[in-house]
């Protein structure tokens, strides 16, 4: 018994707790049962925030979790010393203490498995965090590029860039010029139509001229008949009709020249009329064709200008949208950056929890030695431990958790 107590003392953390004056026999089992309960509480509290009920329960046993181990050490040492001082133990006491020691196995079985699981958490979460950070960097870089491009486009469209500003101005002035030219072409076409009408009127005048000339020809025919009658009359007059014959000859010469002249005038007027008719047709066709082509070209140019101006407006609208979206993305990324820090905070909490578990494990081992000396069975303890292990493996939710439990040393 004394040898076991020495080993128990050696195993315990050598912090000195408050001295206990004495321990009654009935307090031994109670103390060990409290210890087992405390260990379970420590286990559940190790990853819980300080405000949790488990933490408070642990604090009631010995203050903060980090100090609980020291106080429990004091409790076990005091128990061992009290038993040693009494120098003997009854069969009944052995039974009580042994049962309490067996209860300790609950904690002893759980601790190494919990440690093994907890140790894996930082590695697994770090892997995930690094992956997230890599993606975060990529998204941040792309978002920043998009925002930068959008900002530059907006600046250029708003007039910061002279080239773009002048292009926009040229587009607007070109549209205005096209609209002006459209008016000018319309004027030319109207003018052409007016000219054609004038030519048609002129053609009518020519028709009238031809009619007049034909009337002259009729008068000339009548004059020719008069000359013939005068010639017959001059022949009958003989020598006295000599003077009349001279007039008749002059009249015939005039008739011939008039007929020739009338013929030439009619020919000239007819050709002029034909030429004017052709000119009217050609001018009308040409003007209409020209008008159609020019209007089509202007429609296309005007549509292109409208499209260019609309494109600039659309680009500005899209760029403004991209810039706003990028600001939103950046804001969300800042939130992600904040959340990623919890991996490191969790790691530090787990490291703290593992420290506590290590101390409790030492205490549990020492208490188990004590329990063996008091009659508890190590075979029973091992059997319970294996039962726990099998149960935990069956309940494990992930492959990592299962591996951790299998690798845990009891």
């Amino acid at each position, binding site marked *: 018994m004394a040898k076991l107590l020495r080993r128990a003392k050696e195993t315990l953390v050598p912090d000195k707790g408050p001295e206990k004056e004495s321990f009654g026999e009935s307090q031994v089992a109670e103390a060990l049962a409290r210890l087992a309960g405390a260990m379970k509480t420590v286990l559940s509290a190790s990853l819980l925030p300080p405000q949790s009920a488990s933490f408070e329960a642990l604090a009631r046993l010995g203050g903060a979790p980090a100090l609980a181990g020291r106080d429990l050490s004091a409790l076990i040492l005091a128990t061992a010393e009290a038993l040693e001082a009494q120098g003997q133990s009854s069969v009944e006491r052995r039974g009580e203490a042994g049962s309490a020691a067996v209860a300790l196995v609950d904690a002893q079985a759980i601790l190494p498995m919990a440690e093994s699981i907890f140790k894996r958490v930082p590695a697994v979460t*770090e892997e995930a*965090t*690094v992956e997230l*950070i890599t993606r*975060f*960097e990529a998204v*941040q870089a792309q978002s920043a590029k998009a925002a930068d491009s959008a900002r530059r486009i907006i600046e250029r469209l708003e007039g910061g860039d002279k080239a773009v500003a002048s292009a926009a101005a040229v587009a607007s002035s070109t549209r205005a010029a096209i609209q002006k030219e459209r008016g000018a072409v319309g004027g030319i076409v109207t003018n052409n139509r007016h000219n054609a009408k004038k030519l048609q009127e002129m053609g009518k005048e020519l028709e009238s001229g031809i009619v007049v000339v034909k009337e002259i020809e009729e008068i000339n025919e009548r004059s020719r008949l008069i000359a013939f009658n005068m010639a017959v009359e001059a022949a009958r007059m003989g020598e006295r009709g000599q003077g009349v014959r001279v007039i008749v000859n002059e009249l015939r010469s005039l008739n011939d020249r008039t007929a020739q002249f009338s013929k030439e005038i009619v020919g000239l007027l007819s050709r002029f009329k034909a030429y004017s008719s052709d000119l009217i047709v050609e001018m009308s066709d040409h003007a209409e064709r020209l008008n159609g082509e020019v209007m089509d070209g202007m429609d296309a140019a005007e549509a292109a200008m409208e499209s260019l101006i609309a494109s600039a407006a659309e680009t500005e609208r899209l760029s403004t949208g991209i810039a706003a979206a990028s600001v939103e993305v*950046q804001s969300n990324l*800042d939130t992600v*950056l*904040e*959340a*990623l*820090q*919890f*991996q*490191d*905070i969790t*790691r*530090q909490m787990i490291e703290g929890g593992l420290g506590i578990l290590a101390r409790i494990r030492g205490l549990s081992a020492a208490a188990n030695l004590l329990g063996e000396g008091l009659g508890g069975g190590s075979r029973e303890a091992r059997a319970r431990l294996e039962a726990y292990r099998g149960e935990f493996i069956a309940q494990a939710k992930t492959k990592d958790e299962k591996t951790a439990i299998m690798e845990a040393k009891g």
Partner: protein
Amino acid sequence: MNVLVVDDSSTMRKIIGLALGGAGHTYKEAEHGRDGLTKAKAEKFACIVLDVNMPEMNGIEFLKERAKDPALKAVPVIVLTTQDEEALKAEALGLGANSFLVKPFQKEVLIQTIAAVAGS
């Protein structure tokens, strides 16, 4: 600005680096206090962001060593820790730290604090 980030967590160093990079700062990394001291003496930094709980040399020990070196003492230090404790804050500020921030930090707060301490 060129900032030295002293933290034993590689993920935390990357996270702080992302926040700094996003604000146009450059940074170097140190894995613990001793590494930080060596790098702070070898290169000129506008500011040091310092964790507390680290192996080899923790943040408090770093501040004590820094106080002995006039050149190093001139470089402002922002303590950035998960330990939100008044006693620790008082000790760090008492040893010459210029500011005390708690993790998880907000990017804007860190950047503004760097601007404030490095500008002073």
